[in-house]
Structure formats: C-alpha cells, structure tokens
C-alpha cells in the first residue's frame, strides 16, 4: 500500500470527514441509471438507508446504501446515517425483490452504527439487523458489499453479508468506534488513538484478516478528479466481480457466501 505514514487514527478521521463522498455520490457516478424507491411497507421510509434500482450498461442491480447527509439539513433528515429498524426492513424488502427478479445486490456501507434510541428498541433494532443478515445469507443472487466510509458495528454488518466485500483504502470497518472501544476495554475514552491502532480497522488489516476481499486505492489528493477515478475503478470492480460470481450456479452462489463467513475466525484446536 502507498501512504505508509497514514496512521489508523488518520484513516478514522478521513472516513468520518463530513466532506467525504457519500453513497449517493458513488451511486450517481457508478451507475448509468438509478431510480430510488422508498419504504418498508410497514412503518415508514427511514432515510438512513437508500434503496433502488441501478443499471450499468445492460446489467440491472438492486442497490442498498447507508447514506449520511451532505448538509446539516440532510443529515437531520437521514439521522446522520444511523439506521432505524425500518431501514433494515426496507433493505430486506429490496433483497427479496432482487431475488425474485434475479438481480445482483450491491450494498454501500457507511454508518456510525444502528441508531440507539427508544423507538429503535421498541421496534426491534436487534431483530431487524439479525433478519437482514439472515436474508442476505440465503439470498439466491450475487451480493457485493462496498465499505466506503465508516463501517461501524452491527449496523454496518447488517448489510454486509456478501459474496465479496470491497473496501476503499481510507474506509474503516470495526466492532464499534475507537472511542467506545477504549472506554469499554480500558475504562479510558481518551486512548482512542491507541485503540484505533489496536483494533485492526483499516482496509489493509481487514484484508490480512480475510474479512474483506479487495481494496480500492484512494489517490492522496482529495479532489473531484480523483473521486471520479475511484468511482470508475469501483464500477470496473463491480462488473468484473459479478461476471466472476455468475459463473457459479445458484446453489454455489449461496454456498460461496456461506463458506466465506463460516471460515472467519481461526481457532486453535486443543
């Protein structure tokens, strides 16, 4: 990897930068056509997850994306990208539709976590996340997950059970925030930088741990031209990955995803 001097904490700050490109920015640049569709058909339309149909060339996709706001107003509307249970139930609705119409699913992960609120608990946040992973685990179409910013905790993994997990070089993916980690493990929330180093939350660490399968490099300069480059590389990666997964029959697509997660976490036999 380039950028050797960048620390894990630097990457946390890059991933969290409010100016960092969001899911909709990538969607607009990667897909030739996109139609957003709303609602979980049960309670309401939670805007922390965006769902819809996307097309690259003549290939159709179902898109499920965690969306942070790009302005304060939008952030309030989108609950700062922290999904309520309805978001995951909306995601499940579109996963099932993807299966019905035989479209691959592309998910974009970018969240501080599932929203911790009274209503979220009343409406079964835990159940919603569990069900979303359950549906993904058995879905009969290819799934690609892309971690574009912050992938924090169960709220991220809820849409991360994919055949292939791609990660941007400066994105992070972790069990929770470094601040939370240091306060729980060391009873000292000020040691967050040290926690970031220990947690193995960078793309490189996660690739070595086999939690992710592919890193998309990010040029050093954060500008529009480089963003287009990243988006274009992602587009190529999505297209080639789908061709690769589609070589498998339906049963093997499910089994391939199962095996990937079944084998995470090496242990020692006594």
């Amino acid at each position, binding site marked *: 990897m380039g950028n050797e001097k960048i620390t894990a904490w630097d990457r946390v700050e890059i991933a969290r930068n409010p100016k960092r490109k969001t899911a909709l920015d990538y969607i607009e640049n990667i897909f030739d056509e996109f139609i957003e569709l709303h609602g979980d058909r049960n309670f309401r339309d939670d805007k922390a997850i965006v769902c819809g149909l996307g097309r690259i060339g003549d290939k159709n996709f179902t898109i499920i994306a965690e969306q942070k706001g790009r302005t304060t107003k939008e952030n309030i509307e989108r609950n700062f990208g922290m999904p309520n249970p309805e978001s995951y139930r909306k995601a499940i609705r579109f996963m099932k539709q993807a299966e019905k119409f035989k479209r691959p699913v592309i998910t974009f992960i970018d969240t501080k976590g*599932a*929203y*911790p*609120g*009274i209503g*979220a*608990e*009343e*409406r*079964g*946040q*835990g*159940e919603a*996340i*569990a*069900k979303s*992973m*359950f549906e993904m*685990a*058995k879905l009969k179409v290819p799934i690609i997950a892309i971690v574009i910013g912050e992938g924090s*905790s*169960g709220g991220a*993994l*809820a849409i*991360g*059970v994919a055949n292939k997990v791609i990660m941007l070089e400066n994105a992070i*993916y*972790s*069990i*929770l925030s470094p601040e*939370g*980690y240091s*306060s*729980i*493990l060391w009873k000292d929330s000020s040691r967050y930088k040290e926690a970031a180093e*220990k*947690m*193995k*939350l960078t793309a490189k660490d*996660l690739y070595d*741990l086999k*939690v992710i399968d592919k890193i998309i490099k990010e040029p050093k300069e954060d500008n529009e031209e480089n963003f287009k480059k990243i988006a274009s590389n992602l587009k190529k990666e999505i297209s080639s990955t789908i061709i690769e997964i589609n070589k498998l029959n339906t049963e093997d697509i499910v089994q391939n*995803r*199962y095996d990937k*997660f*079944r084998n*995470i*976490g*090496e*242990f*020692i*036999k*006594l």
Partner: protein
Amino acid sequence: MIVDKIKKRETTAKNKKANIDIPIGKWIKCDNCKEIIYKETVRNNLNICPNCGHYFRMHIGKRLELIIDEGTYERFDLNIETTNPLELEDYPKKLKSLREKTGLEEAVSCGIGNINGEKVVICIMDSGFLMGSMGIVVGEKITYSIEQAVKQKLPLIIFSVSGGARMQEGIISLMQMAKTTAALTKLDEAGLLYISVLTDPTYGGVTASFASLGDIILAEPKAMIGFAGQRVIEQTIGESLPEGFQTAEFLLEHGFIDKIVERRDLKDTLYRLIRFHKGGESNGQ
C-alpha cells in the same frame, strides 16, 4: 455501552468456583429488594429470591440441572481456543485465569441432552465468563451446534445471556454474528425447530444475531433484553428512559418475544413446544 452497566451489576458476583451460581459466603443481598438472604435458601429455590421473586443469574451447571434430564447431557467434543486476532498482550492471560477461576472453558457450553426424553441440541451461555460475550470460540461453538442439529435432525435450544460481541477480538467477534446467523438459515431450510430463550441480560451482537432468530422466542421474567445499552441510549437522546424499558415484558408488549416463562415452568414449556413440532403423523393434516 451496556458492558459497563452490566459490570456494575456484576460487582456483587465474585464467583470463585465452578457451578456457584450466586455469590459465595453464607448470605447474599438481593439486588432487587435488598433483603439479606441465606444463600442456601436461594440455591434451593432455583436462584430466585424467596422474598421478592427476583431472578439471580444462573450458570451453566445449574441451568443444565434445571432443563436437561439427569445424566443425559453430552458436551460436544470441540475443545478450541481463540487465536487472539488483535494480538492483545493481556487477553490470553485473562482467559486463562478466568478458566481457572470459573471452571468454565468459555462463555458457552454446547452439547446434546434430553428434555423429558426428547433429544435436543442445547447451548447455554454463561454471564460469569467475560459477560457471556461472543468471540471466536462462542461463535464457532454455536455454529457447530447448529450444524449438528441439522446433521442429526434435532431441535435446537439456545439459552442466551450476553453483553454482546467480545471487544477483545474486535472485528472478528462482529463477524461471528454473520457466521451464526448464516448457519441458522440451514437449520431453517431443514425444517427444524429453534427455540431461543433469552435470560438476563441479552444485548448487542447476540440480540442482533441468533438470539432474535428463534422460531419461538421465550424469555425469563424481567430479563433485560435489547440491542443498544441503556447508557448509550440515554447519552444519545439526552433524556432518561421510561420505566420498564427493555425488560422481557416490554419486548412481549412490542411483539418481539412469544412468551415469558417462569423459571420453574421452563423445562415443561420447552418439552411441550418440542412435542408440537415432532411432525409426521402428529401433525393434523
């Protein structure tokens, strides 16, 4: 995070030997009514306070005694250890001392046993081992148990008690949520019964994976169950939480569990539910 809160509640429980379900010493104070009670009386009362009915936590040995027919439990031969994926220096030492102190191998025990003669795969978590948190070993044991249930065509019962995913194993702990959940899809496709029993407390990554995916979900009275910890929610919303929030009764009211079952009725309830799912000629087709 919930772990802090649980730890606070845990300070009364300084277990020094295996299979001790309530604090040692001859007397204990009930967390709920504050009454000082003779320990033996509580032990002989299914770890329930004779004064106010408060449920003390139950460790694996006592839980097995309560649920599984005597002499029928066979633990799976799966002796494994974590690889310490975050390479934390003091973590292996901590595990070792916990194993010695508690006599437990890890935060879950899994095997096959009978409930009134009905054979089941059973997993029992234990709050005495790093607050029942799920790391590689717990994830692997639960997954292995689910696979054994599929292989041997047996019903699966999991007693959950957990603070969530295990911090010390970082992202790998998080991934155990996906692993256990994926295994449950195979049990589901095989048409086998899974009963999830939630006990106090069940939180975080365990609530957000296998604990919430039972065909039938039972809970012990007043058990605290949720995704986010109460302190985190209070800090996020900046107000205090309503009375009874995240209790088993609250979850029942909101439609997330099937039934609250008293400890003394658990074995019989499980037996009756298993009998309803034996299929074949017993189904009224």
